[in-house]
């Protein structure tokens, strides 16, 4: 799009001003406050209007800000612009709210085409958006470059900064705010809300608080239950206390009743006691003769009586012992018999001990010989087995070095070579696969573009031709329609004119006839008029026929031209059309994108192909190395008695040979060890045999000697034992038994004498005790102990009766309680009838009364302690209501924060997805456009610029011809300026939904540039403006001079 002309009726400081704009670079110069920004605003408002919503007629602030300063001016103006397809439009706007209007005209045809554009709900006509493919905000922010934006790049020409700006432009249409910065803000927001790990942040902290409040609520509910129980208990205690108080009162009443009944009862009791005292006194009198009996001697009498009985029983026992002892002595003498005549001398202990030692030594030697003999036999057998095994194995002894070591080295070398070969093969396969995939990808594009030497040039030519053809075709179509309408008009009018001429002729003839008939000259006048009408209509009919023929010829020519235009297909058209058809591309732009992709793939294919060749050579080298090593291994293993089937058998063969070598080493070591063992065991066996012979000889001599000794001592059973030692042990047991029986007989004979002495002593004791008893009984005037005891019983009965009498008198005194019987009798007679006081006694009642009083005290104490418990539990405890209300607040906040967290997370996810898609989508288009601009700006030095899906910039280095990811390393600061401008321009175009070239409005972008840099920038803009119209607003004289030097037109405000 190119802005052609601005006509300002009234807008801010401008009124009735017309400004013609140039197609390329135009400098609008003027001091500050002269209306540069107003002019810029006018362009934006003319294109997009002044609404701030597409739904409502809500006006942006500019509507009131830009009202004309001069009264009476019409608030609005017009704008003429030309689109890339060559069409020219004129827009008329009236911004006055009362009379707001927008009209769009086809400038060349002067036709109102407003209705051809969609109308938004805010009544705006969206012609600018239709043409530019940009919304108002994006146009204003992207197509307008102010000094702040370019200048901030300054000398710090960092491409990463450029990238950030590109990202921001793609993401928001502004240079400042990108998706990344938005994501960082959202991340901070999520951190501020808090995830589960951040305990101090609001959400987890509130969740935790909520849990605490729930616990507190449950505790409060439990406390309420507990309080209810305590309260119930306290009430129960209180009820119990009341019941006990009633009980106490009842008991006190009963006690009074009992007191009344007590006096009558006491009188009754006193009278009964008096009768009883009289009875006891009578009984006491009956046994009064035993009053002075020496009752205190009764224990002594009883003791002496017991001693007499004991002495008599002792005498009887000793006599019985003497009879039993005599029988035992006779029995013992009978059992000893003839053995009493032999001496049974003691065995010589030294001889017996030696005999025992000899027996043990012989057994020990025999035990020691047994394992030695077995070991000897085993060693001999093993030696024979090892010798046989050694004969079956190869003789490794002829190799000097350790075969394990060099065999391992050999096998490892082989494995390394084999692994290396396999890895190289895999790499080759991967490269081959990639190459095939890549090749298949650009096979079709290659077929398409191979015949086309310079596709880019051809595509541009195609585009221009296509545009021309469309334009011509449209014009021809309009002409054909026009001619067709004219022809149909003629066709409609010719019969009418013919009819009218006929009618005029008939009327004229009629009037002429009448004039002739009536000879009235006045009648000739209408006849003449009819004749004139006849002539007119005839001429019209003839003219129509002629014009119809003429239009037919023109229509045929136009139709032919139109057909010719549509049918003509120049060579380059045919080629490009066929390419598009084959590539199934709807537009030339898609074909261009395919071409870009094809070039990129082709370059990548070349690199991969080279890589494939290098890898193939590496694989071949590895293959040879494996074959050589296999041959060497086969030779070596043949000498070790093994054969290798193939290369996979190498490692198993090494294992087999190493196993054999291990067996060989083991056999050699075994042979040596078994030979030494056999010799050692033989020597040990001979030594033990000699020792055994000596011991057996000594044992025989000593055995003969001991047998003779036993026979001499009268022990005939010696012959029954094979072993002298066993016979000796038997002799010892037998002689001990004989000696034991002899001793027992001696003891019995000695004891017989002592028993006779005991009998004499017992008889003397009996006499002595009887005498002592008789002396004790004499003072009591009784002869036997039984008599003494009878008299003592009477004396005790007397004492008991006296004691009872005394007790009864005391009871009587207690019942009377200091009163006399008569006075008590008198009081009872005075008292009334006595009520029922229950079955309990006074003491029982008193006891109950005490118990009840004690219970009452206990209940009071318990109720008090429960009261304290209630107070303790309720003090400091928050009411359930308060907790639940706080919990409700916390729940609300948690819900709000969770919604915030979810919404923020969701926004982050969407922003990430959308931004990624957007970047990937715009990158190729941006790269292509920026490449074109850069090519133009740098006069072809830098002609290739790549932009990755995440908008990283890389440029082909003209020196190395390689695409470099960090172009800062070889770009000068000036070039980076140019790169930025190219990208900035390309960005506007890339964002356009229609591909229309967007005019750029620059507002003093070079505020801090030095002269050299300014001159360079101006040239650059001059070149860029070949493609995009640029209007540069400035207040600086040096910019104006520089522009003039660059032959750029300057408009002074």
């Amino acid at each position, binding site marked *: 799009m190119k802005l052609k002309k601005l006509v300002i009726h009234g807008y801010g400081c401008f009124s009735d001003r017309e400004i013609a704009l140039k197609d390329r670079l135009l400098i609008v110069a003027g001091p500050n406050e002269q209306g540069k920004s107003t002019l810029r605003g006018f362009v934006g408002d003319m294109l997009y209007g002044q609404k701030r*919503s597409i739904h409502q007629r*809500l006006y942006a602030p500019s509507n009131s800000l830009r009202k004309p300063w001069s009264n009476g001016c019409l608030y609005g103006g017009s704008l003429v612009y030309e689109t890339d397809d060559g069409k020219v439009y004129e827009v008329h706007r009236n911004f006055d709210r009362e009379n707001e209007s927008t009209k769009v005209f086809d400038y060349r045809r002067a036709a109102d085409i407003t209705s051809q554009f969609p109308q938004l709900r805010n009544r705006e006509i969206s012609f600018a958006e239709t043409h530019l493919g940009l*919304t108002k905000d994006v146009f204003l922010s992207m197509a307008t470059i102010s000094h702040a934006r370019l200048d901030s790049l300054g000398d710090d020409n960092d491409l990463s900064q450029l990238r950030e700006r590109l990202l921001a432009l793609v993401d928001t249409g502004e240079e400042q705010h990108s998706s990344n910065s938005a994501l*960082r803000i959202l991340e901070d*927001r999520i951190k*501020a809300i808090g995830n589960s790990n951040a305990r101090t942040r609001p959400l987890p902290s509130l969740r935790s608080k909520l849990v605490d409040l729930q616990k507190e609520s449950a505790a409060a509910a439990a406390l309420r239950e507990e309080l209810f129980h305590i309260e119930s208990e306290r009430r129960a205690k209180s009820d119990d206390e009341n019941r006990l108080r009633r009980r106490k009162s009842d008991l006190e009443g009963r006690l009074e009743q009992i007191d009344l009944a007590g006096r009558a009862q006491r009188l009754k009791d006193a009278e009964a006691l008096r009768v009883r005292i009289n009875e006891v006194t009578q009984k006491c009198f009956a046994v009064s003769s035993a009053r002075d009996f020496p009752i205190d001697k009764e224990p002594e009498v009883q003791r002496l009586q017991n001693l007499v009985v004991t002495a008599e029983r002792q005498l009887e026992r000793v006599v019985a012992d003497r009879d039993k002892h005599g029988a035992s002595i006779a029995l013992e003498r009978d059992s000893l018999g003839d053995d009493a005549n032999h001496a049974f001398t003691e065995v010589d202990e030294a001889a017996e001990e030696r005999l025992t030692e000899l027996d043990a030594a012989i057994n020990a030697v025999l035990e020691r010989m047994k394992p030695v003999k077995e070991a000897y036999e085993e060693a001999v057998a093993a030696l024979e087995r090892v010798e046989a095994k050694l004969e079956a194995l190869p003789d490794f002894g002829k190799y000097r070095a350790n075969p394990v070591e060099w065999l391992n080295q050999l096998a490892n070398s082989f494995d390394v070579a084999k692994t290396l070969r396999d890895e190289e093969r895999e790499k080759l396969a991967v490269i081959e696969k990639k190459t095939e995939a890549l090749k298949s990808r650009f096979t079709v594009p290659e077929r398409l573009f191979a015949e086309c030497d310079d596709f880019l040039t051809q595509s541009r030519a195609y585009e221009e031709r296509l545009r021309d053809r469309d334009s011509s075709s449209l014009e021809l179509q309009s002409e054909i329609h026009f001619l067709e309408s004219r022809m149909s008009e003629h066709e409609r009018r010719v019969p009418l004119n013919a009819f009218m001429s006929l009618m005029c002729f008939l009327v004229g003839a009629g009037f002429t006839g009448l004039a002739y008939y009536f000879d009235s000259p006045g009648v000739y006048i209408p006849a003449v008029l009819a004749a004139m009408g006849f002539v007119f209509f005839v001429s019209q009919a003839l003219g129509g026929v002629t014009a119809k023929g003429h239009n037919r010829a023109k229509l045929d020519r136009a139709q032919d031209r139109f057909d010719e235009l549509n049918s003509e297909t120049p060579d380059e058209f045919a080629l490009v059309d066929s390419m598009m058809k084959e590539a199934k591309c709807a537009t030339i732009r898609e074909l261009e994108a395919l071409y870009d992709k094809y070039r990129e793939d082709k370059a990548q294919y070349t690199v991969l192909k080279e890589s494939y060749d290098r890898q193939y050579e590496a694989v071949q080298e590895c293959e040879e190395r494996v074959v050589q090593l296999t041959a060497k291994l086969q030779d070596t293993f043949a000498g070790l008695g093994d054969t290798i089937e193939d290369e996979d058998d190498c490692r198993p063969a090494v294992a087999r040979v190493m196993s054999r070598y291990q067996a060989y080493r083991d056999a050699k070591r075994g042979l040596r060890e078994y030979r030494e063992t056999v010799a050692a065991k033989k020597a040990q066996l001979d030594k033990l045999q000699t020792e055994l012979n000596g011991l057996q000889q000594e044992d025989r001599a000593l055995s003969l000697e001991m047998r003779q000794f036993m026979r001499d001592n009268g022990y005939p059973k010696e012959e029954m034992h094979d072993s002298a030692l066993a016979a000796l042990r038997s002799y010892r047991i037998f002689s001990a038994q004989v000696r034991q029986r002899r001793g027992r007989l001696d003891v019995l004979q000695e004891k017989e004498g002592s028993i006779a002495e005991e009998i004499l002593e017992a008889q003397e004791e009996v006499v002595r005790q009887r005498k002592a008893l008789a002396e004790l009984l004499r003072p009591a005037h009784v002869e036997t102990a039984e008599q003494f005891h009878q008299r003592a019983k009477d004396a005790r009965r007397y004492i008991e009766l006296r004691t009872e009498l005394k007790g009864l008198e005391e009871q009587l005194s207690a019942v009377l309680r200091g009163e006399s019987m008569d006075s008590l009798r008198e009081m009872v007679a005075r008292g009334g009838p006595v009520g029922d006081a229950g079955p309990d006694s006074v003491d029982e009642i008193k006891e109950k009364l005490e118990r009840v009083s004690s219970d009452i005290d206990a209940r009071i104490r318990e109720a008090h302690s429960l009261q304290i418990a209630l107070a303790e539990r309720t003090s400091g405890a928050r009411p359930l*209501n308060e907790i639940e209300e706080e919990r409700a607040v916390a729940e609300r906040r948690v819900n709000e924060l969770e919604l915030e967290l979810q919404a923020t997370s969701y926004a982050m996810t969407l922003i990430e997805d959308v931004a990624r898609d957007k970047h990937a989508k715009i990158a190729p288009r941006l790269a292509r456009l920026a490449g074109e601009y850069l090519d133009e700006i740098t006069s072809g030095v830098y002609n290739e610029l790549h932009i990755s899906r995440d908008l990283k910039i890389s440029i082909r280095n003209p020196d190395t011809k390689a695409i470099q990811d960090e172009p800062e390393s070889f770009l000068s600061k000036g070039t980076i300026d140019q790169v930025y401008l190219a990208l900035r321009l390309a960005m506007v175009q890339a964002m356009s939904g229609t591909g229309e070239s967007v005019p750029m409005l620059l507002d003093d972008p070079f505020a801090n540039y030095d002269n050299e840099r300014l001159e360079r920038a101006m040239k650059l803009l001059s070149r860029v403006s070949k493609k995009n119209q640029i209007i540069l607003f400035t207040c600086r004289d040096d910019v104006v001079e520089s522009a003039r030097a660059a032959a750029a037109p300057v408009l002074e405000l």
Partner: protein
Amino acid sequence: MPVSGSKRIMKLIHTADVHLDACFSSLAMPARYGNRRRQSLRDVFQHIVQRAAAWPADALLIAGDLFDHDRVTRDTIAFVIREFESISPVPVFIAPGNHDPYTEDSPYANHNWPANVHIFDKPEWTSVSVRGDRLRVHGFAFDGPDISSNPFGQLTIPEDSANTVHVAVAHGSERSRQPADKTDYAPFDAAAAAPPGLAYLALGHFHSTTPVTGEFDTVVYYSGSPEGHGFNEAGMHYHLEIEIDEKKTGPNAERVNVTKVPSSRVKYVVETVDCSPFMTTHQIVESLRAYAKSEALPLVARIVLAGSTSLPVQAELAAIRDAVENDFEFLQLHCRTKALEDYDMLAREETSLGGFIRAVNNELRDATDPARRQLLERARDVGLAAYRNECLAIRGIEDPAEAPAKMEHAG
């Protein structure tokens, strides 16, 4: 006893649904406000009880739900007992309702109530005579959160009691007045529940003052709660003062006079304020202050700020609340203003921002679940603000120190 000419007037006070010690968690207000609300209910109750002594009334009728059984404290029971004691000998009749049923563990059964208080303790009609049998009060009690047998319709008035005024006090849901959002308890039809001879039926359960009329002679009223308990009980609340002409014969509608007496100490209100005309947030503050001053009673208010405005209402919400909250008893302020953001215009942009808005708009178009829509709308606002390097205030963070630092990533 007040006698006016040939008239002899029986005076009664009727209240119900006081809900002492109610929990205000549904209002989501800080706990200290809950305590204030509970104290306010006590004040209202005290005023009604003292009014019974001052008027003086022949009886005070409490038609259930005097307190919340699960929450009532010992202190509140002591307070109620003390209040009733203070107006002795004015008789008080309590018909326990579904919130304060007469159960074994009920305060009604576990405390010593003054002699002038009669608590109906059975789920069947019983009656008590006072004033020398001039007044007979019938009533029944809920014996659990829901009554075991519904006694409505079983009340009969003896015919030979012409000199006695019969009134009844009960708790239950009259079917024709049953609000859709309230659970029914002991449902009944007024015609069946109002037998001939019954001059006045004092009902409790519905929280707004409601007369029940129909083809019956008895004057039937729900007194409503004497003060609201939430934003769904907005407006003024009342207790009823009933005067019955004992001498007069004829329809009860002519001899029974019922007067609604305002009793609320605070007024619950729910209002929406349109912020579209305001140019500054200060105007919003002034509007809220003027509204608070226009009401005679202190307001417990839920105010929603709505309308389309470019003012940063959400960001300034806390400041607005701080500025006006002293003018209200309690204020819940919600922001539902719509920013003058043209999302459809933004969605037309060929930028990532435009793509983001488009994606959310598409989802919003298909979303029917309100929660999902709320999430999407919030995500759109938050995302747009982030693209503009702004940070929207986080809802749910009340302490400004917890909010994220703004503009940390500017540029």
